[in-house]
């Protein structure tokens, strides 16, 4: 081996070494992040029981108390009865919404959620979600407006191949969040667009907005901004992690941006499903290589 070859070889090895070191450093950094997450996760698990008590037992207590009061009202006191029924409705509504999130999160974590694709009338699904949140919005004098770009040109364009129920859960969670972080007399705009078989839904609010630092962590489960037992915002912080997991399944994604000068915009991008509506398991256009093997 000549000196030059030797030098070349040495140089090559040094370079390899440098690369490995760099890789090692990056892996180490990842490890530190994961470790931190696990510690946080453990702490949150401990808080979970107290959260659940706060989020589930309290509404139930109010519902039972209110129902008792209604039962003991004098006959035909409709005004007070209405007012109390209204309160029961909103407590039960919040409870129902949260329980559904807990169940879907459990199903996702058990690996038992499948896309269930059909030709979905996007406008009516979203209108429906807005409708059920209308009462909560009105209580805080918040208006919800929907702008549907694809509906303007043709009725046909409102249809999109996706999972209707999952879309409903996504939009409901985004709306619920927007309502939570809106100020009184605020306004929420739901903007629907469709481009090259990608459905884009943006939920804009005029609320307190989300800092860059917080934008990274809000998709983690049990993560709540201003968490704490006395927080004015309810919820166990499952909503956005559910949204993210469903979008992963439907191959979509979510972006957060600032709604200048005030508030936040959550935008989801959902590709049209290419699973055939009639039979999802058929993969007719596959090209196979070689023989079938049996293991």
């Amino acid at each position, binding site marked *: 081996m000549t000196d030059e070859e030797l030098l070349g070889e040495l140089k090559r090895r040094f370079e390899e070494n440098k690369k490995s070191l760099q*890789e090692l450093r*990056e*892996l180490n950094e*990842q490890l530190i*992040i*994961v470790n931190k*997450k*696990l510690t*946080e*996760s453990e702490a949150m698990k401990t808080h979970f029981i107290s959260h659940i008590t706060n989020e589930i037992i309290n509404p139930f207590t109010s519902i039972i108390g209110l129902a008792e009061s209604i039962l003991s009202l004098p006959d035909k006191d409709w005004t007070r009865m209405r007012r109390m029924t209204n309160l029961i409705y909103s407590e039960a509504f919040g409870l129902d919404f949260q329980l559904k999130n807990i169940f879907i*999160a459990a199903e*996702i*974590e*058990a*690996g*038992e*959620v*499948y*896309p269930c694709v059909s030709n979905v009338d996007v406008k009516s699904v979203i209108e429906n979600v807005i409708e059920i949140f209308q009462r909560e919005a009105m209580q805080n004098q918040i208006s919800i407006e929907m702008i549907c770009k694809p509906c303007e040109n043709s009725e046909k364009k409102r249809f999109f191949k996706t999972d209707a129920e999952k879309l409903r859960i996504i939009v409901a969670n985004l709306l619920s969040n927007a309502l939570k972080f809106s100020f009184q007399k605020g306004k929420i705009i739901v903007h629907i667009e469709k481009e090259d078989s990608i459905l884009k839904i943006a939920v804009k609010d005029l609320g307190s907005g989300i800092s860059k630092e917080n934008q990274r962590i809000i*998709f*983690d*489960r049990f993560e709540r901004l201003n968490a704490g037992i006395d927080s004015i915002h309810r919820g166990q912080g499952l909503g956005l*992690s*559910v949204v*993210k*997991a469903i979008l*992963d*399944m439907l*191959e979509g994604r979510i972006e957060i941006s600032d709604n200048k000068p005030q508030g936040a915009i959550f935008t989801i991008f959902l590709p049209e499903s*290419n699973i055939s509506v009639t039979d*999802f*398991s058929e*993969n007719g256009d*596959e*090209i*196979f*290589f*070689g*023989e*079938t*093997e*049996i*293991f």
Partner: protein
Amino acid sequence: MIPEKHFLYPGALFASLKSAEITTILGSCVAVCLWDSALNIGGINHFMLPLWNGQGLASPRYGNIAIDRLIKKMITLGSNKIHLIAKVFGGGEVISTNISQFHIGQRNIMLAKEFLEEEKIPIISSSVGGKMGRKIVFHTTTGEVIQRFIPMQNMRVDEN
């Protein structure tokens, strides 16, 4: 009895007492098939990444969670762990790269092997690695797996 047909999506898992025929498509993803030789029942998962990094939900998209859940599910169905055998598929390379961090397929395979070894479940056969995608059909009553190769460019990204 005619087996129930089922398509397994990435990040999901399936196990049943009933006879089933489960199809899934793998790129760099790995599927672990568990079969109980005493009860003649089986289960399968399909994970995309080796380890859950603590972000988002702890779903079976991640190997460490997917294999653990599958074993637990088999046990709830009545399996005894000593009767379980495993078959491992997938983990092909989608993108050629020199940075080993990005060799997701290899990392998925490694995780499956290490995890199953730790759980003392023998891998009796496998078809892993390479540069091809795979379509597999798992028969839960016989434990038999039928495999065909698919060129990667014919696969959609999500089927990784």
